[in-house]
């Protein structure tokens, strides 16, 4: 085999591995302790954000004044024309409709590009689950898996 064939085989193998890894990682639930050290998740997410962002998120978690009416708010961060974001939206809004203790809100990062770094969101869609005080419970990169998400929510909504 000529070097060209070897390179072709190598590239194909690398792409297969990378693609499989991306598939496996997508939709998995990450809890705060497992990334970015211990800081995230301990303090409410509002305190780690610039005031304007914190205000918007606070409003999302507690839209009717100070009384929290949902145990978990799923904050979905999307970008315009992103197909997996649409799938996520359909899945999460249906879930929120079925489950009164869960709220779903969506923010378009193309309108707020400056949010991505403080939130640690570098792929869309990313869904961050917040408790009424704004503590991050977990996050999901990519389209969530229905069963896994329902399972993860169970301990918070009962």
């Amino acid at each position, binding site marked *: 085999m*000529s*070097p*060209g*064939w070897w*390179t*072709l085989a*190598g*590239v*194909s193998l*690398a*792409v*297969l591995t*990378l*693609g499989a890894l*991306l*598939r496996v990682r997508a939709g998995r639930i990450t809890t705060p302790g497992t990334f970015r050290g211990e800081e995230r998740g301990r303090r409410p997410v509002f305190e780690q954000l610039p005031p304007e962002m914190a205000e918007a998120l606070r409003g999302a978690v507690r839209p009717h004044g100070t009384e929290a009416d949902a145990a978990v708010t799923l904050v979905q961060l999307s*970008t*315009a*024309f*992103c*197909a997996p974001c*649409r799938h996520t939206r359909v899945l999460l809004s249906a879930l929120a409709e079925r489950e009164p203790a869960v709220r779903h809100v969506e923010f*378009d990062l*193309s*309108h707020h*590009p*400056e949010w*991505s770094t403080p939130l640690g969101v570098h*792929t*869309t869609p990313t869904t961050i689950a917040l408790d009424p005080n704004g503590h991050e419970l977990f996050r999901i990169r990519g389209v969530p898996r229905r069963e896994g998400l329902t399972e993860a929510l169970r301990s918070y909504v009962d």
Partner: protein
Amino acid sequence: MSTDHPVDPRGVRFTAWITSGVLSVGLVTGSWRVLAAQTALFALCAFVGLRMNPWGQLYRKTLRSHLRELPEEQGEDPGPVRFAQGVGFAFTLLATVGYATGWTTFGVVTNALALAAALLNAAFGYCLGCRLYLLVRRLAPAGSPTESH
């Protein structure tokens, strides 16, 4: 500004498969002509418009009529796709120059990288160049915010 309509993601992947084929031929033959042809195609899509893509036209004429109608909201933003074509253009241009000047290793490496990106898009629907577009926009956000919907 561009007047590109939302693009059919299935057409994008169709094109990515053909591009992968062309880039594989380039890698095996080491021919600068093959790479030059692909460079020209990328340039057409990136700088003129995605509608100019001959593979896209082939897709619309043949496969699409057999597939179910694409719901309006399933269209992809042409912006990142065009940007990705520009990234492909840069890499294949380097590979063309590498092969043509006898700097073969350089040609092989850039050709292989372009192939990897095309294959990743074709096989997994993961568009590396489109991710790059988001990254670039984040670093240099567009001046005028688009209206919310």
